[in-house]
């Protein structure tokens, strides 16, 4: 072990001179590259003393890094409702829309608009839920979310978010990567690139899915785009290995695996002595981390050991793939120092083509599935003192139309709403977000924002701000120019921070 210490120190010295992964720390003018390098230098300085402690982290691209300024949020849990839930049945209460129910939509509203499925003149569709105001803040919440109505004072609502993509795939890409086209890093990748992760035995960016399907846009919504692949989201699964290839093969005990890793690393040390390639030492460190990850991941992914009152709180059932289980896992993961936890819950596309995707039936069931767990998540984080440093974001990729869908110019078998980009609701809680604020307002029928409109880029800029980044300076050099999550747009939504 002693000579390994020496090797690692040697490596750290070398890393100062030779940055072999040139893309990581390519001399960005004002990017995180230089910040990463700065913190790297600091950690090397700290370890080059006589203490001799091995800091495997120094070889880890996910080593914790400092942002531009101290951020209030240390980690993020993003609850993405894939398919886009209706704001008009949850938070955006529109009594006028009720009075217009079944009336034909005025043509002036439709002029110049494109919808995915609405053709001709659709009818208006009144809210399919009853609304009340809750808490000190008096936030409007529908009777679909009885639990959530109890925590509204911990939440800030953005009522007039807008997108410019009206199809699921591109809109999810836009929501998660800031671009409707493929090839850009997801928010989680940016954040782990910028901040690293606090726990080297777990992936820094974890993705959990529920609802039986992955999101429409596929794995690209947690891809790392042009950032190194080490920053892409790692999907942790409820069935099979929680992480692909995590489990040892049958018949291989932990002890035996330890011996195997030791042998591999011993031979690799010999190899290092011949070639002096710093990547060899980095590989030794990765094998050590892999060995630890094999224990740490199943441990954190196992919710069966949680006490009964926690299961009661979330409505969790161990061994099932559910949004509830994923909410509890998200809490466990951030507790363990995971930087970014991305949840996708599929099944929110309430067109009205059948009962399960209708706004009056299926939608109600979906709300029931999320209401208790997302409320529990906020309460649980709060009782553990984690809410202040954990940013929770909830929302879909766009909203739903105040009009009833009339796909292919004919009546639908069930009540449904089409995709709508002009206005939808996103809420955020914790991580420095103001409590009990409602920002933005839509018109009388919830068609479009009339004040406090926020773009997807604004949402991203605000999330980055809460994490300690100036979104205009948080860049990565790719193909000759600096790229940002917010592209060339985005304004901080200061009303909620």
């Amino acid at each position, binding site marked *: 072990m002693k000579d390994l210490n020496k090797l690692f120190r040697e490596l750290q010295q070398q890393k100062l001179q*030779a940055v072999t992964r040139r893309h990581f720390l390519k001399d960005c003018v004002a990017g995180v590259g230089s910040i990463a390098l700065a913190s790297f230098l600091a950690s090397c300085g700290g370890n080059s003393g006589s203490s001799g402690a091995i800091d495997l982290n120094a070889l880890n691209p996910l080593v914790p890094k400092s942002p531009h300024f101290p951020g209030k949020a240390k980690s993020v849990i993003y609850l993405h409702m894939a398919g886009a839930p209706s704001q008009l049945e949850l938070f955006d209460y529109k009594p006028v829309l009720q009075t217009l129910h079944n009336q034909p939509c005025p043509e002036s509203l439709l002029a110049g608009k494109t919808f995915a499925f609405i053709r001709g003149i659709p009818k208006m569709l009144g809210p399919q839920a009853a609304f009340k105001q809750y808490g000190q803040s008096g936030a409007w919440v529908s009777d679909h979310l009885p639990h959530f109505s109890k925590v509204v004072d911990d939440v800030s609502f953005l009522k007039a978010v807008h997108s410019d993509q009206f199809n699921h795939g591109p809109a999810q890409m836009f929501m998660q990567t800031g671009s409707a086209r493929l090839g850009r890093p997801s928010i989680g990748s940016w954040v782990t690139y910028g901040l690293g992760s606090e726990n080297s035995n777990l992936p820094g960016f974890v993705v959990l899915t529920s609802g039986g399907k992955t999101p429409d846009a596929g794995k690209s919504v947690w891809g790392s785009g042009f950032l190194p*692949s080490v920053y892409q989201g790692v999907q942790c699964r409820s069935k099979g290995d929680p992480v692909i290839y995590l489990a040892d093969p049958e018949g291989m005990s932990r002890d035996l*695996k330890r011996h195997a890793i030791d*042998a591999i690393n011993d031979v690799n040390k010999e190899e290092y002595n011949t070639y002096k390639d710093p990547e060899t030492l980095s590989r030794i460190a990765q094998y050590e981390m892999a060995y630890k990850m094999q224990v740490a991941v199943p441990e954190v992914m196992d919710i069966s050991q949680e006490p009964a009152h926690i299961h009661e709180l979330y409505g969790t059932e161990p061994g099932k793939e559910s949004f509830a289980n994923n909410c509890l896992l998200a809490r466990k993961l951030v507790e363990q120092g995971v930087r970014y936890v991305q949840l996708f819950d599929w099944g929110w596309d309430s067109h009205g083509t059948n009962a399960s995707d209708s706004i009056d039936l299926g939608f109600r069931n979906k709300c029931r599935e999320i209401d208790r767990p997302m409320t529990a998540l906020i309460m649980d984080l709060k009782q553990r003192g984690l809410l202040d440093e954990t940013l929770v974001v909830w929302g879909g990729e766009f909203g739903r139309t105040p009009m009833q869908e009339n796909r292919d110019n004919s009546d639908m078998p069930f009540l449904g709403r089409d995709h709508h980009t002009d206005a939808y609701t996103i809420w955020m809680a914790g991580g420095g977000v103001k409590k009990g604020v409602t920002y933005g307002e839509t018109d009388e029928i919830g068609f479009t924002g009339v004040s406090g409109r926020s773009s997807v880029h604004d949402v991203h800029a605000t999330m980055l701000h809460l994490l300690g980044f100036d979104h205009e300076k948080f860049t990565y050099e790719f*193909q000759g120019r600096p790229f940002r999550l917010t592209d060339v747009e985005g304004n901080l939504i200061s009303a909620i921070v």
Partner: protein
Amino acid sequence: MKKKVVVVSILLSVIVAVGLLTFQQENPVDFSADVKPILNKHCITCHGGVKKNGGFSLLFENEAFAKTESGQSAIIKGDADHSEFIKRLTSDDPELRMPYNAPMLHDDEIDILKRWINEGAKWGEHWAYTLPEKVEVPKPFSFASLLGMNPSGISNNIDYFIQDKLKEKDLSFSKEADKETLLRRLYLDIVGIPPSLSELQSFVKDTREEAYEERVDRLLASQQYGEKWASWWLDLARYADTKGYEKDGSRQIWPYRDWLIKAFNKDMPFDEFMVQQLAGDLLPDPTKDQLIATAFHRNTMNNDEGGTDSEEFRMASVLDRVNTTYQVWLSTTFECVQCHSHTYDPFKFEEYYKSVAFFNNTRDEDTQGDHPRLRFYKAEDESRVDSIKSWLTQKGNQKLIRSTDLFLHTLEPKIHAHYSDQVENGALYDTKWLGIRSGGSARLKHITLQGKKQLYINYWTTLKGGTIEVRKGSKTGPLLTLVQLPSTSGRQVIQADMKEDTGVHDLYLLFKNATAAKDQPICMIEWFALREGFPVSTDPESQRMQNNFMQLINTNPESVPVMIENPAEMHRKTHVFERGNRLALGKEVQPAVPATLNPFPKGAPNNRLGFAKWIVSKDNPLTARTLVNRIWAQLFGRGLVEPLGDMGTQSTPSMHIELLDYLALDLMQTKKWSMKSLIKDIVMSYTYKQSSSLNQGDADKDPANIYLARGPRFRLSAEQIRDQTLAVSGLLSSKMYGHSVMPYQPDGVWMTVYSGESWTTSTGEDQFRRGLYTFLKRTSPYPSFISFDASSREVCLVDRIRTNTPLQALTTLNDPVYLEAAKHLSKLMQQEGSGDSKKIISYAYKKLMLKNPSAEKVVALEKLYKEALLNFNKKPAEAIKFMAVNASESKDPALTSNAAYMVVANALLNLDEFLTKS
């Protein structure tokens, strides 16, 4: 101490004096080398392509000397002191001093700018945009060369260039790598898999001078060469087996991958290779292979999600083709010009759309059917095609022969259902298929009727008795034809004769079927086509030909998406998109190439083919350099110029430009664009053959091996790691070509929406094919490849970043594919190696690494063997599980020892040296 200071200051003043002297005698300031980097670093962000603050831009010569908002020019040639440009750099007023809100320029930078203006402010081009006519090889005098021999450390001209730079840095070449390392390196680089032990032994024994070159030639001639290098090109081509976006359904485009392997294997000259991929369809009488080559640009994604606007995603594909073309062949980040003039490079906003105009006239329109597709008829059907063509030849209408051939092989030109508008009592279902109810109608606008005698409709319906009236000009206009729609089983193409007419008109389609329910469309239509039709004749032969024709177009043969140019009547206009917004159309533009680069070749057609010829013109400064740089990077792990995706003003300064230019010119002039010759030249160089071990001195001077004082050493690619593992364990299939395969992957990886498709594990040798044959689903790529930095191929990728992560370790340790390989390897090592465990392990090590292990390595591995054996002897049931053996095999007395060897084999397959090319 004082004395030291004095000495130092004397030294310093001497240095300064010498420096000043040399400065005085120096050549005039060079714009590209000295001035442009300063402008790019400090000025151009605010005074360049995007922003022109104060009306001042330094991107183009005419802009730099033009009048600014103040009415004066900022730069007065020959007079630095009166140039506002210089005054602003030193102003005391922080509101005036430039760069604004940023640190002042260094004195030496200001000095260079002053001298440049005083010397006349001569503008120049960046090296990337001009290609020298000739590059001298920097051969120092040597007696050896007088005698016609190579001096030591020199194998060919490449080495002179490298040596020249090494001297500058006081470095020297490393010793040549040992034969074992060199042969492994060569195999991995040329064919992608390592040599066998016997191939190694014969090479080691072969002491002839030509031994190495013979291996190089043999490998370049081997079939596996094409597989290795196609694997590289597939990233550039963004090749995948699915269409991408939400639905991400399968796409059959593997014939392109096979074309690529064959093109590499026959060493198709790169200019031809390029022209065929970009514009094979526009070559005179293109062959089937030339059409398949055009699938390069059909690897763009296709959005089948319901409710998507096909025009939006057609345009997305066109823009992707422009960006990819500039990226793949010219190392240019042309996508930057999509919304504004290039920030750094001399490309103008409008020029982007002039390039788009070359690509904006192909028939593909983001349809679910991935049209147009080249159809591969079965032999008997192909002979029916031939008989139709020869029958038409007798009739002597050349134009008709061509159009018939095109239609039979691509069903083009056709009009897609989404082209229809003014839909009444119906809809474009799922924004894909036209479904109109009885009494409803739709319009097809601007249809050329001249010479059109037949209407073809691809439709399906369960209803009998439907009709479509086709009327000219309006719903009540003259009836051109009445189409009867029999009920169908699945999709069918039907043909109806049309009244002859002239001119361009809107067609109105009126749908009727009294038996249809109120809300029921009478049919679904995928496409229409209007054709000239066969010569009218009572000849029974004519009827037979028409029947054959209908039968052929109603077959559903294997096919591949290809590029087909619009006929003149379907020509699309191209407009500038204001700020990159497709819906904000600016002025119309005609196809043209950027002014900064070489002129458009004389006599070349002003279309994609001409554009392709412009790219491979010997005057193009970027094409050959790009290829040389990328091939160099494949072999050395980094390019001569970095980054690989950007050869222009933002390239990292490189000392290897002369070598790059030399190789680029040589490639075009001497090697006639032969990629094999270029690869051979590089691997024959001493530079390539050097040992890759790092000594401390070199590590200090050149840690990243930019100067190349040692050989390349870097981790293998995702595909290579798999191929090598299968090869050494005896599992690798040598089968080439064909449908992509689905080797083992864990359950539940594919969980995509609305797709009935599933991962069905291949059987037999298809489980063990080379990595490039693995089915690639864009939204869910093969997981072990992604861990090792492979691309999901959504967009073109020129340079894979190599990471080093715990997930990689987990893959090679635990992926059942690697365990299966370990099991096979453990058998082979015991069969082929002999003696005690030490000998067997040493043999296995040599089989994988192709050299003898050091004593320490054997000790470590044998220790593992003994611990594993002890473990399994204590718990034989675990050995049964680990080996996954059946009941009779589990009685084998050697079971526990076999399992222990499998543990060792698993470890060997995980060693750094195995995963790395050194």
